[in-house]
C-alpha cells in the first residue's frame, strides 16, 4: 500500500525527535512573540521559549484550553495578521459564540498534505471517486477531506450532508468508490439500501473513511459487513487543524499521529501530570508547523492511549487508540460537538433565570437524537395551547441555530428531573456505541 510521504512517515525516531525539537522551538517563539494570550500564560507560568532544551521540557509550559479560545474570540489567538489568513473555520464553543480558527496558505498546504497521507494510508488513490457526505461549511470535516482527495488526484464528489435518497442515487450513478462521512451516517445509508432492496454489491464502494464521532470496533464490523467495504478511522479537531491529525493504516491498529506536525502527550486530566507511554489519559496536542493558529499543549479532552511500538505498515509515527471518552461533558451528536452549557445559555435567555433541564441523547436507527427536557415554571407556562407550543418550537429553533443540531424540547413538571446533591444530572446518554 502506498505511503504518501515515506521520507517523513517512516522517519527513524531520533531523527523525528530532532525535527520536532527544532519545530517546537520556533513554534513557541512565534506564539510567544505574536499572541498576547501566550505571552501572558508563559509569563504567569514563569517559562520562556528558550527554556525548552529538550522535548521533555514542554511539560513545563502551560496548557491551552477551549476557555482560552472563548476569551480571545474571534481573532485574538491568531499569530499572523488577517491579511495572511486565507481560511477561517469554526467549531462549537461552550457558549453561544463559536470557536474560531484561521489558516495561512502554508497551513492549508500542510493540512492537505496530512489528509493525503491519511487517505493514502486508508488505500485511496487517484483512481477513486471520493464521495464526501460531511457537511461543507464552517465545520472542518468536509474541506479537510476534500482538499486531500483532490491532491491525491481522486475525483471528488462534494455531496455535503443530508438527502439520503439523492446520496444513494449519486453513489449508484457516479460510481462512488470511497465514502467519507460519520460512521453512524454510514449505517443510515446501509439501512436505506436495505429498505430499498439495493444490494451493496451493486455499488462500487470499497473503502470508507469515518470520523467526527466516536465509534466502536463492533460498529466497524457492522459497517464493513453491511456496505461491503473497509472502514477506516481517523482523528482530528478543528482547534488543532481539522481531520488529518491522525489516521489508521489498513492494519487498523490505532491511528498514526503525524508527529512531524504535532506533538502528542497523555496527561492525567485531574492533575495535569504527563503520563508514561501506554497509559490511558487525556490527549494534549501541540502544533509544530501551524502559522496562523499555533496551539501550545491544547487539551483535547479526548481520552486515549499512545503506542510507540513500530507498526507493520512501516510507518514510525505513534499510534493513538480509538478515543474512549471525554474528560469534560462535551457530547458528539450527529458528528456535531455539543456542550450542555450552550443549551443552558439558550434556556437562560428565554427563561430569564437558571433553568432546570436535562439532555437525553439516544440513537434510533443509527441516528442520534437529542431531547431537551425543561422543567416548566410560571414564566414559560401559558394557559393557551397555541402559545405553549409556539414556545416549544421557538426554543427548538434557537437550539438548531446556535448548536447546529435539531433537538426535541419536552416540557416536564417542576422537580421531575432527578437531582443529586441539589444539582440535576445534566446529561443522560443512552447510546450504545
Amino acid at each position, binding site marked *: 500500500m502506498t505511503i504518501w510521504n515515506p521520507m517523513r512517515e517512516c522517519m527513524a525516531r531520533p531523527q523525528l525527535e530532532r525535527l520536532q525539537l527544532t519545530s517546537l522551538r520556533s513554534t513557541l517563539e512565534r506564539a510567544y512573540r505574536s499572541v498576547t494570550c501566550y505571552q501572558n500564560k508563559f509569563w504567569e507560568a514563569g517559562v520562556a521559549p528558550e527554556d525548552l532544551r529538550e522535548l521533555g521540557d514542554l511539560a513545563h509550559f502551560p496548557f491551552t484550553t477551549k476557555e482560552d479560545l472563548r476569551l480571545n474570540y474571534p481573532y485574538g489567538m491568531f499569530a499572523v495578521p488577517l491579511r495572511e489568513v486565507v481560511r477561517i473555520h469554526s467549531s462549537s464553543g461552550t457558549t453561544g459564540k463559536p470557536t474560531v480558527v484561521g489558516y495561512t496558505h502554508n497551513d492549508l498546504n500542510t493540512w492537505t498534505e496530512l489528509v493525503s497521507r491519511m487517505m493514502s494510508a486508508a488505500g485511496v488513490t487517484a483512481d477513486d471517486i471520493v464521495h464526501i457526505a460531511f457537511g461543507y461549511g464552517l465545520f472542518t470535516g468536509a474541506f479537510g477531506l476534500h482538499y486531500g482527495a483532490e491532491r491525491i488526484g481522486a475525483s471528488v464528489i462534494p455531496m455535503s450532508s443530508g438527502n439520503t435518497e439523492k446520496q444513494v442515487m449519486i453513489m449508484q450513478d457516479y460510481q462512488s468508490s470511497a465514502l467519507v462521512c460519520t460512521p453512524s451516517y454510514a449505517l443510515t445509508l446501509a439501512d436505506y439500501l436495505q429498505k430499498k432492496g439495493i444490494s451493496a454489491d451493486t455499488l462500487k464502494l470499497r473503502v470508507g473513511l469515518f470520523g467526527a464521532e466516536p465509534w466502536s470496533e463492533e460498529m466497524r464490523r457492522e459497517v464493513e459487513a453491511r456496505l461491503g467495504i473497509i472502514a477506516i478511522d481517523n482523528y482530528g479537531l478543528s482547534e488543532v487543524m481539522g481531520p488529518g491529525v491522525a489516521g489508521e493504516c489498513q492494519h487498523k491498529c490505532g491511528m498514526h499521529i503525524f508527529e512531524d506536525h504535532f506533538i502528542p502527550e497523555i496527561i492525567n486530566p485531574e492533575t495535569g501530570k504527563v503520563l508514561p507511554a501506554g497509559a490511558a489519559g487525556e490527549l494534549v496536542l501541540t502544533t509544530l508547523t501551524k502559522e496562523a493558529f499555533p496551539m501550545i499543549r491544547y487539551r483535547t479532552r479526548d481520552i486515549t492511549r499512545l503506542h510507540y511500538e513500530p507498526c507493520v505498515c512501516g510507518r514510525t509515527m505513534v499510534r493513538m487508540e480509538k478515543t474512549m471518552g471525554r474528560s469534560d461533558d462535551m457530547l458528539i451528536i450527529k458528528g456535531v460537538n455539543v456542550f450542555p452549557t450552550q443549551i443552558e445559555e439558550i434556556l437562560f435567555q428565554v427563561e430569564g433565570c437558571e433553568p432546570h433541564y436535562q439532555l437525553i441523547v439516544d440513537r434510533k436507527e443509527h441516528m442520534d437524537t437529542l431531547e431537551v427536557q425543561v422543567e*416548566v*415554571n*410560571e414564566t414559560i*407556562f*401559558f*394557559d*393557551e*395551547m*397555541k402559545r*405553549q*407550543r409556539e414556545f416549544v418550537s421557538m426554543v427548538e429553533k434557537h437550539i438548531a441555530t446556535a448548536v447546529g443540531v435539531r433537538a426535541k424540547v*419536552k*416540557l*416536564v*413538571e*417542576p*422537580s*421531575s428531573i432527578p437531582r443529586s446533591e441539589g444539582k440535576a444530572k445534566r446529561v443522560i446518554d443512552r447510546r450504545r456505541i
Partner: protein
Amino acid sequence: MKVDQISIFIENKSGRLAEVTRVIGEAGVNIRALSLADTSDFGILRLIVDKADLARDVLKDKGFTVNKTQVVGVEVPDRPLGLSRILQVLDESRINVEYMYAFVERCGENAVIIFRFDNLEEAIEALTANGINVLPGERISGM
C-alpha cells in the same frame, strides 16, 4: 364580570390528573368546570373552582406550575343556534376566541360556556350590548 381560572401544567403521564384533583379536593376546593388540552408530551388543565386562590396555593405547594387567568362565563340559550348567535356577535365585533369550554352546571334553562378572549373588556361590552348575559364571577364560582 370576569371569572378567575387556574391553569396547571401536567405531563402526559398516568396519575397526574388524579394527583391534581386529589390535592385540591383535600383542601376542600370544589371544581366547577374544567377543560384539558393536551399534546403527546404535556397537557394544560384549566379549572374554574370555588376557591381559586386556595387551589393555586395548594397546587404550587405540591410543586405544580400554576397560572391564574381571567375568563368570561356566558349564558347560552339551550336551543339550536344558541351558541351560534353568540359566536356571530363576537365575529362581527372582531373579537378572537382563544379557547372555550362548556360549564358543568346549568343556569336555569340556559347552559354556561367559558370563554377566553384576546380582549376581555371589549368582549364583555360587545356581548352585553347585544343582550347576551355575561355571568358575574362570584355567581360562577359559587354555582
